[in-house]
């Protein structure tokens, strides 16, 4: 693979976003190429389609083995839809999902089923994620039985018990019902279920967002420990930037169904290269009274994904928007090694680009 790192004009038009995937040598665990998910809006007397919700509109990223990629953005940006589409909880509209070199987006349900073992999922709400009418034992045994991992019933029990150990729950709790547990304990059960198939990747869809501060810290620590122990890759979908910064290796920022910036943690939090990332970071309230911070307060609301703005989708709220942003859609381009942003500012000379500074400049 001889693709260069920069924005070579020859590639800039073909698959702009795909370059982010193409420049590395080793095969990533998961590749998502130009993924789209549009939901039809049904209406009218005959139930015809009257429009589309462009929930996810061309998203490209990869996750390496053992790596955590976070997907951040505000509600309605499509981050959870990405997670559900790659889990094939609904079929994607377009694009590819490649797991360890094998395309899984176009597999039949039957062919896909054994591959589901390799991706676990933990959802946001620990109360509705567990069937209230199943004991913990049965909840954890379900994936083990589905994938035929246990040799016999003794092996099954042993595996369930080991899972309880892994998530630091007492083994004898397997006979209890979900409602007997607190929110944090239930989330541990959900994590245990996600691990039951011995996956390579775990999708955490706002997995700690609904938890209380002290419990959140317990679960965050558990996830980090498990990642180290089991070498898991993680897709961490969250709106909580402080937690993301704490957990992640790389971050992708989504706005209205598109990735606007994707970068390693230090680069993204130190020197964001997209105005939306910059505004998002400055909007987070910091638990330090009197912390002198320059806050960029975005005006207005997120536009509707049914009728997204032309050109750059962020131009309606962007403090730096100029004429080109209203007509011309920016493509992801590499600004510093590993850091990709979709913003026209980076085509301007450095002195006119308010986002040109690097991480070291921020720290100084």
């Amino acid at each position, binding site marked *: 693979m001889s693709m260069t790192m920069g924005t070579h004009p020859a590639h800039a038009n073909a698959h702009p976003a795909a370059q982010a995937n193409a420049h590395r040598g080793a095969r990533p665990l998961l590749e998502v190429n130009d993924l789209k998910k549009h939901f039809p809006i049904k209406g009218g007397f005959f139930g015809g389609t009257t429009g589309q919700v462009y929930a996810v509109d061309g998203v490209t990223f990869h996750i390496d083995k053992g790596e955590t990629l976070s997907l951040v953005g505000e509600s309605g940006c499509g981050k959870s839809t990405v997670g559900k589409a790659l889990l094939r909880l609904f079929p994607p509209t377009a694009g590819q999902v490649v797991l360890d070199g094998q395309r899984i987006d176009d597999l039949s349900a039957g062919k896909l089923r054994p591959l589901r073992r390799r991706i676990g999922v933990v959802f946001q709400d620990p109360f*509705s994620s567990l*069937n209230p009418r199943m004991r913990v034992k049965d909840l954890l045994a379900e994936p083990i039985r589905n994938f035929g991992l246990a040799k016999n019933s003794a092996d099954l029990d042993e595996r369930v018990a080991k899972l309880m150990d892994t998530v630091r729950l007492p083994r004898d709790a397997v006979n209890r019902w979900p409602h007997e547990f607190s929110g944090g304990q239930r989330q541990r059960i959900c994590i245990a279920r996600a691990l039951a198939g011995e996956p390579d990747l775990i999708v955490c869809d706002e997995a700690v967002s609904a938890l209380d501060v002290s419990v959140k810290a317990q679960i965050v620590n558990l996830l980090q420990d498990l990642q180290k122990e089991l070498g898991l890759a993680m897709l961490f979908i969250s709106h909580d930037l402080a937690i993301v910064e704490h957990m992640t290796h790389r971050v992708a920022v989504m706005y209205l169904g598109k990735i606007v910036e994707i970068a390693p943690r230090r680069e993204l939090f130190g020197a964001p290269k997209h105005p939306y990332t910059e505004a998002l970071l400055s909007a987070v309230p910091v638990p330090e009274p009197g912390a002198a911070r320059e806050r960029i307060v975005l005006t207005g609301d997120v536009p509707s994904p049914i009728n997204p703005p032309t050109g750059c989708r962020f131009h309606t709220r962007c403090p730096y928007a100029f004429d080109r942003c209203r007509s011309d859609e920016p493509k992801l381009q590499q600004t510093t090694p590993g850091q990709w942003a979709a913003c026209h500012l980076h085509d301007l000379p450095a002195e006119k680009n308010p986002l040109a500074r690097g991480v070291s400049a921020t720290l100084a």
Partner: protein
Amino acid sequence: MSTTILPPGAVSRRDVAAAAPTPDVMQPKQPRKGFLGYLMRHPTIAFGGALLLLMIGVAVFAPFLWTKDPTALAPVMRTRDPSAAHWFGTDMLGRDVYSRVLYGTRVSLIVGFGVAFFASVIGLFIGLVSGFVRWADSIIMRVMDGLMSIPSILLAIALMALTRGSVGNVILAITVAEIPRVSRLVRGVVLSLREQPYVDAAVACGTRTPVIIWRHILPNTLAPMTVQATYICASAMITEAILSFIGAGTPPIIPSWGNIMAEGRALWQVKPYIVFFPAIFLSITVLAVNLLGDGLRDSLDPRAAKRV
């Protein structure tokens, strides 16, 4: 963050200030455990259930409750007022109304329970199919819409007109009329359950669709189904009475409350008790079933459990 905690032992019991104890605002009651405690917390279930049990007792033990043959004619004893010999009086053919009303309980309960059972089972099946098979859904639901556009009593009359009058056919006719309501309910529950994260989680860990329906969907539809079944039971008993009253239901030789009332209708102004007693029994039975349904709904409703 500076830790400003003294080492253990640095403080002794003498130099600590104890917080003022907080008095009890209300006394905790020792909850009764077990089935009796459950009944005490849900008086509607206790009352409705007791009443219904009483009615079932009446139906089962009708021959032993000082009744006579409900179909025995006694032309001499026509239209007698209630007395020691005939507690509810006699009808225009001299039959004992008390015996007829007690035996009529059997018909009502059989029809009520039968319809509730069959309508639930068939409605559950249709609702599950419709909630899971997208292409079948639009067809099934249009058929159900069509059925629901006909008043259920008219539908039942029409069906009865096609068949011979018998208790079985009455159950069949009312069941057909009730199915659309059940299947709509089940479909709604199934569609909302399919959105539950635990169903998504089951799909993601490789569970096949039939297993998902059996293990994750079905058990969670049972609570709303049980409640709905009680309402269907009550409504079926009323429909049966109406059908019999207009002569389109249970054959006249079988004493059912509707039949008794139909026969007493002509004498309503002079001998009101012939209509009055079966009507009272019907009302009490329907009330019992409805109370039971309301109580079950409150007790099975997950929102009720979230109350502080």
